[in-house]
């Protein structure tokens, strides 16, 4: 993955922050962290909570890793990263239990499974271990928000069609026939496939448009993934 921009300028603050939301969106572009993306998006509330929890772990672990990056020997870095990430996940786990038991039961073991979410270890290895604390926080925030937005995209569609409501509020009225499938596992696969199709179609269209306009567009590399 080539993160450097084509021109030789160093990435600006806005770039570092925004790339996670759009250009390198962890779910839609990099296709990472699929387990929580599919498992907890059966309602928008669950999706949002999961997104926030992941963002917290991302920011927390990135900050700590970036702070300690000079002191951690290369040989044991993966082990330390995992311990740091697991620490923050345990904290989030307790925080959610304290806020709402109902939410905690709905998300189940998937809060604890944030530990093995490849996005977090990936950012620690690729960014936080090499950049300043400020940059790392920005990067983690961007990635976290990008992840949250992606989860919300899925959660909204699944909850709307699957139960006829949004964030627990009825939208379509009482006569609506819910599509039970959408809150079931196959619904997760289909809705994510739908979003990916939409993205790839949109990307294709904008590339061809740019090409016909005679503008040389740099390919973003998503096709190789």
């Amino acid at each position, binding site marked *: 993955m080539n993160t450097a921009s084509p021109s030789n300028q160093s990435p600006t603050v806005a770039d570092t922050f925004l790339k996670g939301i759009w250009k390198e969106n962890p779910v839609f572009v990099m296709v*990472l962290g699929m387990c929580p993306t599919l498992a907890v998006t059966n309602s928008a509330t669950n999706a949002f909570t999961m997104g926030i929890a992941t963002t917290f772990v991302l920011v927390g672990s990135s900050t700590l890793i970036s702070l300690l990056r000079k002191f951690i020997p290369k040989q044991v870095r993966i*082990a330390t990263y995992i311990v740091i990430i*697991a620490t923050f996940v345990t904290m989030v786990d307790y925080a959610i239990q304290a806020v709402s038991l109902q939410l905690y039961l709905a998300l189940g073991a998937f809060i604890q*499974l944030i530990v093995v979410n490849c996005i977090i270890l990936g950012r620690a290895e690729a960014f936080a271990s090499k950049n300043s604390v400020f940059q790392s926080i920005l990067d983690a925030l961007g990635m976290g928000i990008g992840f949250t937005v992606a989860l919300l995209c899925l959660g909204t569609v699944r909850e709307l069609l699957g139960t006829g409501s949004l964030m627990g509020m009825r939208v379509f009225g009482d006569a609506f026939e819910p599509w039970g499938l959408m809150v079931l*596992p196959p619904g997760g*696969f*289909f809705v994510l496939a739908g979003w*990916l199709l939409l993205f*790839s*179609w949109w990307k294709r269209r904008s590339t061809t448009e740019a090409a016909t306009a005679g503008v040389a567009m740099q390919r973003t590399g998503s096709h190789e993934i």
Partner: protein
Amino acid sequence: MKSDSLAYIFLNACLINNFVLSSFLGICPFLGVSGKLETASRMGLAVTFVMLITSGCASAINAALAYLGMEYLRLICYIVVIACAVQLVEMIIKKFSPALFRAMGIYLPLITTNCAILGLALFQTAKQYDFIQGIAYALGAGAGFSLALVIMAGLREQLNLADVPDVAKGTALSLIIAGILSLAFMGFAGLGG
């Protein structure tokens, strides 16, 4: 069949609530390593192997932590043990069976961040399985994971020759196949109940 009998635990993890297709665990290798039948079956074997070890370790850790009253360290212990177990398994296999190591060696490090392994440990704790039940659960989960992976690989090998529309190539198509498989596996619901 009683819901805590060994046969049911196995069936449940393998077919009824298949780890990949209905619990969404291990999706990354499911999408990533399912291009070829050969690699898929080896990955399945390696994961099942590590699952068995993890399940045994998790039972022991859980008992120890409960005895000490330090449940809040559970997650850290699990993940560290899994990482160590993977490393250990890799070394043991390398030493005693080079042939087996060649077959599944390169997939072993990948397993550390496979959420199916940690998921197995966490689910088994939540369901309060004892040691033997845990082993049955691990076997079922491993078999279910391998089954899903091998089926997926078979289909993707066949589709290599297909005239798939450009927009659907790659992950989107894999997800659609996964969705249809997940629909098909819904037929197993209620099995043995």
